[in-house]
Every structure is written in C-alpha cells, then in structure tokens.
C-alpha cells in the first residue's frame, strides 16, 4: 500500500512534465492540423537553455530567485526557438499538401538534435542537485517511507501555476479567443480582422515556452540531460496528447498524467527495462480502439 502510494506520487510528477509537453503538441495540432514532430526537441532545447542559465548564475544569485530567473530565461529563449522552427520549416509550406510540414518537422527535429550535439557536445550533462530533501508523508508497515521530494512538489506547483495561467489565456483573453477562432475556422477569423499568421506563430511560441518549463523541471528532477532526451519524451508526450484526444487542451494534461502514472506503475510492478513498451502499447491501443481519445470530440456539428 505504502509502496503503491509512493508510485502514485512519482507518477504524478512525471505525468505533469509529459502534460506540459503534450499541450504543445495538441495546441499546434488544433490550430494548424499538423503534428509538430520537432516539439520534443524544443523541450530538449529548453532543458539545455535551463542548464546554460543555471551555469550563468552559478556563484551569483541562488535560492528561489535563481530558479525563477532561470525558468523565465529558458521560457523566453526557447519560445524564440519555437518561433524560428515555425518560420523556417512550416510557414513556407502553409497551403502545401498535408504531408509536407510533417516531413519538414522530422527534418527540423534532426536539425535541432544535431545543432545541440555540435554546440554542447554529445556527452551527458550532469548538474548538482539544486532542490534537495523531501517531505515524509508517513512511514508504512515494514518501515517503508512514503516521501514527496521537494523537487516533486516544485514540479507539481510550477505546472499547476503555468497551466492555470495558460487556461486563463486561452479561455478569457482576446488572444485566446483569436487562437480558438483560427482553430475552428481560419478563413472566418481572417474575415474578422484576425492576423492568422501571427496567431499561428504565437501558438508555436506559447507551446515552446511550456515545453521549456517541462525541460527546466526535467533538468532539476533528473539532473542529467543529453541532446537525445527530446525524442523519447516527445513521443511519450505525443502519446499523451493522443490518449487525451488530440486537439483537446485538458485532454493533453489528463493524458500526460495517465502516461506518467502508467509508466511509473509499470516500472514499479513489472519491468523498468520495458517501461517504454507500456507507453507505446497504449498509443497503439488508443489509435485502434479510441481514435478520438478520452476527451477528444466527435466531429458532429450542426451546419
């Protein structure tokens, strides 16, 4: 029981990271109808920018101020990467056949991986733990301690704050309404004076900033990154977005949490070597039996 509870805690904090990345997949899919396969690598770039930020601050400021500063720095720089990816690889292909941006997304993914590999080296980059210690919830029978580490608490709180802000942006602000309008009927949005190209660019920018939050939290939690982390995390977040219903923002978060939990429990009770199998088996099953996902919508509307 205590062991299961500990897995629950671990699964939720992992799932939050997947959820943050999944939001970027699902938002871009909703608005331009393409899977941005470079998004996982944007997450990786976010982790590296966070690392650079931490090193720049080393010896200077520390404590919560440093963490916040690095987070904002990473979000800002990574958002520029997201914007650049869209401008270079997708915008020139708008109006082209559907597969074209998908292929250039895969190309962009390879470019980002090799760029970081060249610029930062191929070796693993470790950092010293910054947020340490944990909070013991209770000690179960047989002396098993259920603990939440401070970094897990930081992940959950940061994610909740960021997602709350994002939700307000999408549901309550003119920009959010414009984004939803472009998603539902791009031509009509243009007829109402929405600069649709700018709105699409902003969706990429916001998605990249959220991925940067995920990259930052990943770096703090695991302490080791390399240029290839975007691939696995990206595919899992994509799975989360499909599980939740591609195009659905709450679905992406829900899917992220479920994938995090499934992966953690699978690792705890079956096999940690085959943990990726669990996530990808889910992807296959969802695509076969529930293609609209948990919160995806059926395409039935009155016209």
């Amino acid at each position: 029981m205590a062991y299961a509870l500990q897995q629950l805690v671990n699964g939720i904090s992992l799932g939050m990271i997947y959820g943050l990345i999944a939001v970027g997949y699902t938002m871009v899919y909703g608005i331009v109808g393409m899977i941005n396969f470079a998004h996982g690598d944007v997450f990786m770039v976010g982790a590296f920018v966070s690392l650079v930020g931490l090193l720049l601050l080393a010896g200077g400021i520390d404590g919560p101020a440093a963490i916040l500063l690095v987070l904002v720095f990473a979000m800002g720089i990574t958002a520029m990467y997201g914007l650049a990816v869209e401008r270079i690889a997708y915008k020139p292909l708008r109006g082209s056949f559907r597969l074209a941006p998908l292929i250039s997304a895969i190309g962009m993914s390879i470019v980002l991986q090799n760029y970081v590999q060249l610029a930062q080296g191929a070796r693993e980059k470790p950092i010293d733990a910054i947020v340490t210690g944990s909070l013991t919830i209770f000690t179960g029978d047989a002396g098993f301690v259920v603990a939440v580490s401070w970094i897990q608490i930081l992940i959950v709180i940061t994610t909740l704050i960021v997602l709350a802000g994002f939700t307000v942006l999408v549901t309550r602000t003119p920009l959010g309404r414009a984004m939803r309008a472009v998603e539902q009927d791009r031509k009509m949005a243009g007829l109402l004076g929405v600069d649709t190209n700018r709105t699409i660019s902003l969706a990429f920018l916001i998605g990249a900033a959220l991925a940067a939050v995920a990259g930052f939290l990943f770096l703090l939690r695991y302490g080791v990154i390399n240029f290839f982390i975007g691939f696995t995390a990206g595919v899992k977040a994509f799975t989360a977005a499909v599980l939740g219903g591609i195009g659905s923002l709450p679905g992406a978060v829900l899917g992220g949490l479920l994938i995090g939990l499934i992966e953690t429990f699978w690792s705890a009770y079956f096999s940690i070597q085959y943990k990726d199998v669990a996530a990808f088996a889910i992807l296959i099953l969802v695509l076969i039996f529930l293609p609209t996902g948990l919160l995806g919508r059926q395409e039935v509307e009155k016209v």
Partner: protein
Amino acid sequence: MSLLSLEGISAGYGPVQALEDVSLHVGQGEIVTLVGANGAGKSTLLMTICGDPRARTGRIVFDGQDITALPTHLIMRQGLAQSPEGRRIFPRMTVNENLLMGAEVAGHDPAPGLAQARALFPILLERAGQRAGTLSGGEQQMLAIARALMSRPRLLLLDEPSLGLAPLIVRQIFGAIRRLNEEEGLTVLLVEQNAFQALRLAHRGYVLVNGRITLQGSGAELMTRSEVQDAYLGGGHG
C-alpha cells in the same frame, strides 16, 4: 463619392475564372444587391473584396483607399465586415464569444455592438452562454449578421442571409437590415438568390451571369425587366 468601387475585377480559384472584368460601385448609405444564379460568382465577388481570393486584375477602392493588395485582416480593419456564405459561426465558442470576435480584434469597444446585437436579435441575449454550434439555422444566421456588425462597419457585405430559413425569420432579418440602413446609415452590399425580396429592399442592383455583370439599375427597375423576371423571379411573384 462611392464608398466602395470595383474596377475591372477578375478573380477565381485555381484554374477556374469566377469573375470577369466586374465593375461596380456602392455609394455611402446605399443598399446594393447582387442577384444571379447559383455559381454566377456572387460569393466569390464578396470574398474578392476581402482579398481572399485575390483579384487577378483590376482595382478595389474603399473609402478612397486602394485595398486591392492589402492582406485580408487589414482590409477588414478598414471598416468593412462580412457575414459570409454558410454563416461560418465558430461552433465551439459561445454566442457571446462569437460576438466578441467581431469587435475586439480590431480594437473596438464591444459594448455598443453587443447592445445593438441584442436589440436587433433578442434571442441572442437568451442564448448568450450557449455554444453557437447548437443554435438553429435561423439563430446562426442572426448571430453571423450580429457578429459582422460588432465592429460598427461602414460597409456590410451580406451573403445569402435568407438561405434555408423560414419566411418569418427572413422577414425579420430583412427588416433588421432595412432599419440599420435607415436609422444608422449603414451601407450594405447584399448577395441574394431570393432576388425578389432583395430587389425590393435594395436601392440599386446588379445582375451577375457567369462572372460578368449583365444588367444594372434601381431595384424597382430591375424587377420589371423580363430577363430578371424569367431567370430569377419565376414570373408569378409579387
């Protein structure tokens, strides 16, 4: 001086040429209608004014400014609004959000537009929080018109407001257009397949056949022309 003028406009989609050397003008405070059969190019004409598709030849001038080459969203910020073919309301937004979309992008204060929308079509107030996709066809049409009016445009481009609606609702919508024109001086370019009602409402009209303007004149005058009667009025009306 006319508020909108088109000079020698040709346009189309891909290899299809939908408009051929179309010239027309709409004066300040006028209701002008464009009648013609299905596929004559009426909707394409309204869309071409908005820059989507772009005119291949010719010039479009709105309020003294050449808007031919402006991007669509900038054209729409000059004081034009369109209630397009098929209504194109945002189905997964509420009625209220749909209305707000009509105003805030161009930086207009939505309050007067909302008040006007509710005065014209009180049903929209009742349905304010409902998802627009769940509205009936007539309600969606009212929403599309009200949304176009949110930016307080000087020129309203109105595409087939009567399509598929019950006669009572059509009367209500046409009454609203007439009132806006008389009381607020709103200029309207109206496309209709219901030629009889459109010509009765409009000050002037143009007849579009296969992408070309073949006839023009006052509404009353066009209604008496045998070509118009045979083709679009089915003889027995009125």
